[in-house]
């Protein structure tokens, strides 16, 4: 009886050991699945919105040779702070060993930047053109040790509204 109880507790112990050992992997798996789904959804959303705004471009130039008469001009800003998910960070450790492009990071920054541009445009729905569009990236925190590593992506431009013919 006693030995059986002992065996059972040993079995329990092994089970608990496995459970504890697998927690980091479970977190990684969770991060992978949710991160992947979130990214896919975000890209779909970005594409739809970019299509809506395709006729109102943001340009880096300051002047257009044949600009119609301007009714109003104002500064517009769009920004987003993004961070990389746990799984991608885990993968990047290998990439850092071999060198090369960190594809998982580029996609995060890419969709962050496109989101920033879209937010900038959405903050001025009446605009006809966005002149002198500037993009900027800054790391909000470096993410050493337990700290969160994230970057801010900013887009700003001058939203211009042309004069409408009367009536």
């Amino acid at each position: 009886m006693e030995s059986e109880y002992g065996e059972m507790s040993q079995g329990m112990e092994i089970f608990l050991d496995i459970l504890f050992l697998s927690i980091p992997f479970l977190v990684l798996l969770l991060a992978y699945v949710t991160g992947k789904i979130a990214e896919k959804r975000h890209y779909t959303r970005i594409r739809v919105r970019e299509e809506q705004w395709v006729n109102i471009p943001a340009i880096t130039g300051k002047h257009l040779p044949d600009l119609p008469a301007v009714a109003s001009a104002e500064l517009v800003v769009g920004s987003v702070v993004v961070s990389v998910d746990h799984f991608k960070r885990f993968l990047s450790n290998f990439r850092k060993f071999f060198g090369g492009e960190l594809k998982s990071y580029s996609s995060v920054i890419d969709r962050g930047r496109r989101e920033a541009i879209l937010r900038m445009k959405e903050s001025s729905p009446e605009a006809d053109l966005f002149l002198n569009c500037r993009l900027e990236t800054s790391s909000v925190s470096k993410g050493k040790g337990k700290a969160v590593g994230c970057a801010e992506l900013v887009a700003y431009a001058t939203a211009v509204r042309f004069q409408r013919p009367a009536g």
Partner: protein
Amino acid sequence: MTLTNLESIPGRTITEHYGLVQGSTIRAKHVGRDLMAGLKNIVGGELKGYTELMREARQQATDRMVEQAEELGANAIINVRYTTTSVSQGAAEMLAYGTAVRCQ
């Protein structure tokens, strides 16, 4: 007050220059936000708390710049630029600067 990041204001003429105006703020994120961001960090994606924080900081920097321009008697700021620097871990400086002008 008209703000623009162009060197002129489209459709208007500049009559007077008042020189450089600037506004800055240093913001730290608070513990609650940091905690949430830590959790969010596992999944990745946007950190809404921080986005909000940076937006507030940028707004404040802009307001300070505008205030300075108003003191000078300007009614527009041209060539506005934003820069961000992380001063220390968990704190960021937001700087807005531009040229104060009077336009018609």
